[in-house]
C-alpha cells in the first residue's frame, strides 16, 4: 500500500494541486457512493466524446505519466477529466506503439501487469476498429484501471462503481474491501469483463481469441458472462451519444447542428426554413433580369417590379389586338393612370435607371406629340429589348416634355435620328412602354394617330 500511495500522490501532484489522503478515500463506504458514482460514470461516459481534439499535448503527457488514481479523479473538473480520458483512446489509436512503462515518470503501470496488458490490448483493438466504440471501451477500461488502482472506497470518483455495475457485485465488493490484491483481482475480472464485452461489440475477428487468452489466468467464468452485456450496453450508449455530436441524443433528430449553433428543434426548423427561402431567392434571381443585387430586400423589390412589368405588358398587348389607332387612344388614356401611378423600373440596361413618379404635366398637344413620337422610336427598341429579357430605362416625363420644348423637329418619327435625351437612356415608363407596343403593332403608317396616342399617354 505504501508504494502505491506514494505514487498516487505523485500523480496527484502532477495533475492536481489538491491532495486527498488515501486513508480518507479508503474509509468511505463504497455502497453509499456506488449509486452516485454509477450515475456519474454514465455522465462521464457521455461527456467523454465531447471535445476530443483539444489537449493533445496533455494527452501525450497523460499517456507517459501514470494515469491518475481515483482519488484525484474527484478533484478534477468533470470537463477536464473526461477530455483527458477521451483523448487517451484517440491517442492510442494514433500511436501504433503500445504504452511504454519506460516513459512513465512515476510508477504507473509497473504495479499492475494486467493493466499493461489491458492497455496493449486496447491499442491493438482500437487501431482496427471504430473509434467511438473503441474510445468508449478504452475509456471504461481506463476507469477500471483507475478504480482498481485507487482506493476501493474512493468517494467522488465515478470509477469505482464501474466494476460494481459491470461485473458481479460479489466479486468486486470483495475486491474493494482491501486495497491492493483484492483490487487487483477484481480489477482483472472487471478488466477482463470489459475486454470481453469490448471484443463482443467490436468486429475484429482475430482479436477476440487473443484477448480472452490474455486474461485467462485471472478469469472468472461467470464474471465474464455477466459482464458481457453491460459493457456492450454502456458502449452502445457512448457511441450513440457520440454520434449525436454536439446535439442532445435524440433519435428523431436528422439535422446535425454545427458547432456553436443552437441545437433545439426550433432553431433548426428556423434554419431549414431560411435555407429554403434562400434557395427560392436564388432561383428567382436567375429569372429576373438585372438581378445582381445581393440584398434580399432590393431583390424582392426587383422581383415585384418585374412581375408588375410583365403584367403590364400583357395588358398592353391585349389592347394592341384591337387595332384602330383612334380606338386605342381613350383606352391608353384610361390605362395610363393605372400604369403610370407606380413607375416600373425595368432594369438599367441602357444606362442610368431612374425611378420617378409619372406626374403628368399638361403640355401642349403638339409638343408632346413630337416628343413622344421620338421617344416611341427610341422606346420601341428598348421595349423590344426588354421583351426579350433585356433592361429598360426610365425617363421622367417632365424631362421628356422639357426636351420636347427644347427640340422641335418634324412630325415624322420613323426616320428621326436619335435625339439627345434619348441618347443616354431609353425612357421606359409604363406609359411609354405602352406606346412602344402601340407603335409596333400599329406600324408607322399612321404617324399622326400614333402621335396622338402618345400624346394622350404622356399627359399623365
Amino acid at each position, binding site marked *: 500500500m505504501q508504494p502505491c500511495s506514494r505514487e498516487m500522490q505523485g500523480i496527484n501532484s502532477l495533475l492536481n494541486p489538491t491532495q486527498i489522503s488515501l486513508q480518507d478515500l479508503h474509509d468511505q463506504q463504497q455502497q453509499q457512493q456506488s449509486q452516485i458514482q454509477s450515475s456519474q460514470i454514465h455522465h462521464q461516459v457521455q461527456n467523454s466524446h465531447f471535445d476530443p481534439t483539444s489537449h493533445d499535448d496533455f494527452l501525450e503527457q497523460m499517456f507517459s505519466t501514470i494515469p491518475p488514481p481515483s482519488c484525484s479523479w474527484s478533484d478534477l473538473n468533470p470537463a477536464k477529466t473526461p477530455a483527458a480520458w477521451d483523448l487517451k483512446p484517440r491517442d492510442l489509436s494514433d500511436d501504433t506503439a503500445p504504452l511504454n512503462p519506460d516513459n512513465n515518470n512515476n510508477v504507473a503501470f509497473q504495479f499492475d501487469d494486467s493493466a499493461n496488458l489491458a492497455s496493449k490490448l486496447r491499442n491493438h483493438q482500437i487501431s482496427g476498429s471504430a473509434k467511438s466504440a473503441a474510445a468508449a471501451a478504452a475509456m471504461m477500461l481506463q476507469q477500471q484501471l483507475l478504480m482498481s488502482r485507487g482506493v476501493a472506497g474512493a468517494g467522488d470518483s465515478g470509477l469505482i462503481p464501474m466494476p460494481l455495475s459491470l461485473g458481479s457485485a460479489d466479486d468486486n465488493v470483495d475486491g474493494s474491501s482491501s486495497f491492493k490484491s483484492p483490487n487487483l483481482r477484481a480489477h482483472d475480472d472487471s478488466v477482463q469483463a470489459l475486454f470481453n464485452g469490448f471484443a463482443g461489440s467490436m468486429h475484429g475477428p482475430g482479436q477476440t481469441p487473443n484477448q480472452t487468452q490474455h486474461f485467462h489466468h485471472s478469469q472468472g467464468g461467470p464474471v465474464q458472462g455477466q459482464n458481457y452485456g453491460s459493457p456492450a450496453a454502456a458502449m452502445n450508449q457512448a457511441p450513440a451519444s457520440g454520434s449525436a455530436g454536439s446535439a442532445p441524443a435524440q433519435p428523431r433528430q436528422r439535422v446535425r447542428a454545427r458547432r456553436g449553433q443552437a441545437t433545439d428543434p426550433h432553431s433548426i426548423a428556423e434554419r431549414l*426554413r431560411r435555407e*429554403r*427561402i434562400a434557395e*427560392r*431567392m436564388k*432561383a*428567382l434571381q*436567375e*429569372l*429576373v433580369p438585372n438581378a445582381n443585387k445581393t440584398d*434580399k*430586400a432590393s431583390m*424582392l*423589390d426587383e*422581383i*415585384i417590379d*418585374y*412581375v*408588375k412589368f*410583365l*403584367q403590364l*405588358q*400583357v*395588358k398592353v*398587348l*391585349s*389592347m*394592341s*389586338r*384591337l*387595332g*384602330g389607332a*383612334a*380606338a*386605342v387612344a*381613350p*383606352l391608353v388614356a*384610361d390605362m395610363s393612370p393605372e400604369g403610370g401611378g407606380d413607375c416600373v423600373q425595368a432594369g438599367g440596361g441602357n444606362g442610368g435607371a431612374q425611378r420617378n413618379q409619372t406626374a403628368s404635366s399638361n403640355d401642349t398637344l403638339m409638343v408632346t406629340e413630337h416628343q413622344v413620337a421620338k421617344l416611341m422610336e427610341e422606346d420601341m427598341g428598348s421595349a423590344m429589348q426588354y*421583351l426579350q*429579357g433585356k433592361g429598360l430605362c426610365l425617363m421622367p416625363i417632365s424631362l421628356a416634355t422639357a426636351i420636347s420644348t427644347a427640340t422641335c423637329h418634324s412630325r415624322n418619327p420613323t426616320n428621326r435620328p436619335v435625339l439627345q435625351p434619348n441618347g443616354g437612356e431609353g425612357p421606359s415608363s409604363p406609359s411609354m412602354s405602352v406606346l412602344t*407596343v402601340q407603335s*409596333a*403593332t*400599329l*406600324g408607322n403608317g399612321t404617324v399622326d394617330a400614333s402621335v396622338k396616342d402618345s400624346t394622350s399617354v404622356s399627359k399623365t
Partner: protein
Amino acid sequence: MISKGATRNSNSRRVKFARRFVSALLHMRNRNPRPGSLSIEGVRTKSQRIKIAAYLSMAHAVGSRRAWSRAVLSKLGSRARRHMSRMGRSSLGSLKKKRVIRSYSPGELGQAKKLRQLVPGGKTMDICSLLEETAHYITCLATQVKVMQTLADNFSK
C-alpha cells in the same frame, strides 16, 4: 439552367397557351362580328376580355399543378364569372377563405404583401411557397408575353 425536361415543358406550355389563346380570340371575334365598335367602353371591355383570355389560357396550359394557376382558374374561369353574375359579388366574396397571414421576418413585411397581391392566389401562402409560385408565375408570364408579342407582330397590319 434549362434542363431538357424544362425546355420540353416550356415548349408544350407555350404551344398549349398559343392554341388556347388563338381559339379564344377567334371565339371572341365570331361572337362580335361587327368591327366598328369604337366606343370607349366597348374597346375597354374587349381588351379586358382579351387579357382575361390570355391569363386563362395560360392557366389552362399550366393546369392545376400550381397554386397560382388554380387561383386564376377559380377566379377568372367562365364558371366563376357566371357564378358572379348570378349570385352577385358579395356572395363570392363571402365564399373566400379568410386566413391571417403572419410573416415571420419583419423585414419582408411590405414586400411580401405586395408580392402576394401581384401573384394570383398568393394571399394564402407562406413566404416559402410564395417565392416558389412567383418563380413559376414569372416564367409563365414571360412566355405569355412572348407569344402575344409574336402574334401581334405577325397578324397585325
